């Protein structure tokens, strides 16, 4: 068990209940160059610091949400529900 993550609906739960889906990326809008595409598919900021990332409360309510976490300390700064289409 590692750090505790607060699900927007269920509250604080051990991180093992959640699925992690990586840092928030920007999908190219239309027919990107190969370079733009591979940058989106493979390359990551991988910051040591505050990172916006996707989580799903897989073992609980099932919601996908966004968290802002400091990757140096695993401190969760905030969680929020996604605003689709943005």
């Amino acid at each position: 068990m590692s750090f505790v993550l607060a699900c927007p609906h269920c509250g604080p739960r051990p991180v093992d209940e959640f699925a992690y889906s990586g840092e928030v990326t920007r999908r190219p809008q239309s027919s990107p160059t190969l370079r733009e595409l591979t940058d989106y598919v493979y390359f990551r900021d991988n910051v040591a610091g505050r990172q916006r990332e996707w989580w799903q409360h897989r073992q609980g309510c099932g919601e996908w949400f966004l968290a802002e976490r400091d990757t140096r300390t695993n401190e969760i700064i905030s969680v929020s529900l996604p605003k689709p289409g943005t």
Partner: protein
Amino acid sequence: MKEIFFPKRMWRSRGELKRRYDVVIVGGGSHGLATAYYLAKEHGAKSVCILEKSYIGSGASGRNTTIVRSNYRTPEGAAFYGESVRLYERLSKELDFNLMFSQRGHLTLAHSDRALVVMQERAEVNKLLGIKSSVVGPREIAALCPELDLSDRPTWPVLGALFHPPGGIIRHDAVVWAFARAADRRGVDIHPYTEVTGFQQSNGRVTVVETNRGRIECGQVVSATAGWSTLVGDLAGVRLPITTHILQAFVTEPLKPFLDVVIVSSQLHVYVSQTDRGEFLIGAEIEPYTTYKGTGTLSFLETSARHSLELFPQLERTKLLRTWTGLCDLSPDYSPILGKTEVDNFHVSTGWGTYGFKAAPIVGVTLAELVATGKTPELIAPFALERFHTDTLVSELAAAAVSH
């Protein structure tokens, strides 16, 4: 041998930074030190330094589970690691330091027929490349490792295994120290507690390395900083396809010899070996989320203890003594990223996931050649960073999960 009676310094004590080095290697782990050593030995490089932010071997080199093997899935990977094992076999003698390379055989267990197929594929690729590797059934496993629970009692009974006789364990710290000593004796300056804080560039080349102890002009730069390679890359403006994760391991209290071979189970996400000191060394898979915080997790201890006992129920009253974590740089295809980048004289060794230690000597040989000649050796050409721009990956994923 005579150093037993007449102790001699392994390396010079930390000196002042010189104003300029031809080659600046960032990272004083097995990769950086090996590169420095081969640069000096094979290419006569006279002006090489290592910058290490902590003590040498403080990162992944000193935190791995010391397993060495070459039974990879891709022909590119198997050929590369095959050469690494061959180098390791000669290394104690070459460096006159006993690395205690214990080639006691490596068994990757299959608990499903799907896993057996993947092993079959690895075995076939390996055989074609001259690497000893074969799929064995329960009877042969029992002969190789009578201690293993091969009954139907476990939730995931053992169906077969990939047997790799040259695989084994090596004393990881000794590899670091032996390379450091050899590099030092050939004139490489090792600067521990020296952290890189920036790079100055002109005309697409790094010209100056800035550190917490001052600046260095440089000819070429090699970054071999597992765990932190994204951050060092960022300083040079080189974006990498890397995420950073923790990997954990633990040892038990020492026991008399019990387990000779190295046992790995991808299904159970656990690998078990017994060190020459008698400790059982047990590791698992990386944590799924990215982090730079090197604290371990209780669930890792619980899960890997449970899974180890599925394989070796005899260990139930054996006591866990010490745990640790290390940072891993994960690449999208589970193959390393090695060689040139878009900054002309900035080279990387990264993306090793959990496999970096196994490759130290061959990384040293090939990166030294690249730095010295400017040409990418054929053995590492498939692992160029560029493959992620051209989308031609070298996927070890099918063989991955846990394959230590």
